[in-house]
Structure formats: C-alpha cells, structure tokens
C-alpha cells in the first residue's frame, strides 16, 4: 500500500502510522522520519518563517515514483509520504515518511532511502524569512551525495 499526501495542513503522526499498519498483523515494525522547520533566526531574533512552494501534479508524481521504487527494493507492506506546502513556523512539521515491514532492517533502510531521494527529487522549494529578509534555501551537495549513495548500493538485506 502506497499513500502520498501533499497538503498545507498539519498531520497527526499517531493516526497516520496506525492507518499504515491497520488490518495487517504481519507488520513487525514501522520506521518514520519527521522533518521539522528549524529556527534560522535564533532565539534573539524576531520570529522566522519558511514558505514551501511546490509544483502541483509533478510533486505527487515524483513522490509516488519514489515510493514505488522503495516498495520494489525492500520487502515493505506499506509506505507513506506526507509533505506540506505553504507558510510554516519553526518547530512545525514539514514532512513525514513512514515505512512498514515484517523486518525492521527493511523499514529503517527504506525510510532513510525515501527521505534522501525526496530531498533531491521532490519539486519543493523553501523560502526562508528571518524577519528582516527573504532568502531561497540553496540545495546542499550533501543531499545529492546522500541520494547518490542509494543508486550505487545494491540491496543488502
């Protein structure tokens, strides 16, 4: 089961993870990664915010493709990606990636794979506002490297 959600509203992790494993008692573990907005301005500055722009249509297509690839590479029972867009504040949840499997190694590895790929493939862009000026977040080489690692690696479980 693949579930992809692109939304402006927040999500409830408990409810989402419960839905992922509902009715399937062969699932032994669920790995998840929740991305949060970090405060770029620091505690002394006026409130910072982040606005996430995305490419409606392509976003869902890319996230679905990434999820399908994870389901092929690992023995997963279910896979969930929720990504928010719009204006978010420090501490807000941005993204939830979760994978469910009979085997914990498969769940943990595929969860890392999904967040690494999502960082380099999903068409989202972050505009940071530190209270005085706006700045588009630059892509990180380390993200490209993290994603490239998975391309080089064959499945090891």
């Amino acid at each position: 089961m693949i579930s992809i959600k692109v939304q402006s509203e927040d999500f409830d992790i408990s409810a989402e993870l419960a839905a992922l494993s509902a009715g399937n008692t062969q699932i032994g573990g669920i790995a998840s990664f929740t991305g949060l907005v970090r405060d770029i301005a620091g505690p002394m500055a006026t409130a910072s915010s982040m606005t996430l722009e995305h490419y409606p249509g392509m976003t869902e297509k890319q996230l679905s493709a990434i999820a399908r690839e994870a389901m092929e590479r690992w023995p997963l029972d279910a896979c969930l990606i929720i990504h928010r867009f719009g204006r978010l504040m420090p501490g807000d949840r941005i993204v939830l990636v979760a994978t469910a499997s009979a085997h914990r190694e498969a769940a943990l590895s595929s969860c890392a794979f999904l967040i690494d790929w999502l960082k380099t493939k999903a068409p989202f862009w972050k505009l940071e506002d530190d209270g005085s000026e706006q700045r588009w977040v630059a892509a990180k080489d380390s993200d490209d490297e993290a994603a490239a690692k998975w391309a080089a690696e064959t499945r090891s479980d």
Partner: protein
Amino acid sequence: MKLLYFAWIRAKIGMAEEQVTLPPDVRNVGQLLDWLASRGGNYAAALKERSVVKVAVNQEYVAADHALQPGDEVALFPPVTGG
C-alpha cells in the same frame, strides 16, 4: 507550449507561467533554454547559471537533449530543497 517557472527562477522572470510559440529551430530542451535566455532582461538573469536550472517536461525530469513536442508542459526550476 506552456512554460512554468518555480522558486527564484519564477521570481527573477517575474511570472509563474506563460504560453509560448517556439521558433522552428528550437527542437529540444537545451535549445529552449538558449532561446529563452536570448530574450535578455529577466530571462537572461534567471537562466544565467545554466547548470542549476532543472527542467521537467510533462512533470518528468529531462536532460538538455530531450526533444520537445507541441503541447508539452515544460517547467524550469532551481535544484529542489524539500524534505
């Protein structure tokens, strides 16, 4: 052909989308970027650093040699920063 712009490429060009008619010698993605940059002004500024301009055709990533078809949806954007 429909062109879409995102993030700072959108901000620099000054619009989110436009409808264009390609000259007959613009047949692939690389030629499209050359042609857009040749319009000068905001376009030249937005497409100056060609290596950081990503292109999707019909919502799939493509390379510079990807051939364009009439009716394609072509999106130009900087490297993604989601997650």
